C-alpha cells in the first residue's frame, strides 16, 4: 500500500499535465512502515533525462537521485517510490517500465495523461526478491494528510 499526502498526489498529477506531451518523473520521499506500507510525505520533481524520446521514455539522472537521497537523509526520510506519466497511454506499467525498474519494494506511481489532462493514477509495488523474480503488483493508494 502507498499512503500519500494528498498535496503530493495532486502535485504529481499536475506535473504530468505540465510535462505533456512528454513524460514527467520524480521521486517520493517518506518512510516504510512496519506493515511495509510506503508513506510518501514529500515529492521531488525531476527532469526527464530522455531528451531523445521524452514522449515515451523517462530517465532520472542518478546524480539527482544521489542529491535527493541525501536531502531525505537530512530530514529523516528515505526514497520510498517514484512517479512518472504515460502521455495518451494507460496507467499501467509497460514492458520497459518493468525491465528498467530496480528499486525492489518501492512504489511506482503512473498517471495517464490524455490530451494534456491527468486521468487515472495507479500505483504498483515492485515485488520479488531479485531481478529474475521481479514483477509489479497493483497496490492501493491511500490519501493520508500530513
Amino acid at each position: 500500500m502507498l499512503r500519500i499526502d494528498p498535496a503530493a498526489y495532486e502535485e504529481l498529477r499536475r506535473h504530468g499535465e505540465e510535462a505533456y506531451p512528454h513524460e514527467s518523473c520524480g521521486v517520493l520521499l517518506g518512510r516504510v512502515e512496519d506493515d511495509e506500507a510506503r508513506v510518501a510525505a514529500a515529492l521531488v520533481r525531476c527532469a526527464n533525462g530522455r531528451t531523445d524520446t521524452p514522449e515515451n521514455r523517462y530517465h532520472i539522472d542518478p546524480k539527482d537521485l544521489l542529491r535527493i537521497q541525501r536531502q531525505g537523509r537530512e530530514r529523516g526520510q528515505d526514497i520510498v517510490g517514484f512517479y512518472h506519466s504515460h502521455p495518451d497511454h494507460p496507467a499501467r506499467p509497460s514492458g520497459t517500465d518493468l525491465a528498467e525498474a530496480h528499486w525492489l519494494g518501492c512504489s511506482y506511481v503512473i498517471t495517464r495523461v490524455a490530451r494534456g489532462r491527468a486521468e487515472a493514477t495507479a500505483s504498483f509495488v515492485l515485488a520479488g526478491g531479485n531481478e529474475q523474480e521481479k514483477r509489479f503488483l497493483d497496490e492501493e493508494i491511500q490519501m493520508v494528510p500530513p
Partner: protein
Amino acid sequence: MTVHIPTPLRPYAGKEAAIDVPAATVGEALSRLVERHPDLRRHLYGEEGKLRSFVNVYLNDEDVRYLQREATPVKEGDALSIVPSIAGGR
C-alpha cells in the same frame, strides 16, 4: 569509510542505511560490504562478477565510472553511495 545503502537493498544489509567499512579502494569497500552481508552480492554483481549495469556507485559526488572504477582510492571520511537507476516509459 561509510557506504550508504539505498532503500531496496537494506533488507539484504541487516536493515542498515549506512555501513562503515575499512577500505583503501572502492572495490575493497564493496568487497568488505558483501563479505559482511553476502545476500547483497547478487544484487550488486552479475554472474560474471562485474557490477550490474544499473547499479551506480558514487564516491562522494562522483560516479566511480568516471574515476578509476573499483580501483579508485578512498580515504577515511569518504562516502560511497549505491544508487540503482530509475527509468522506463510507456
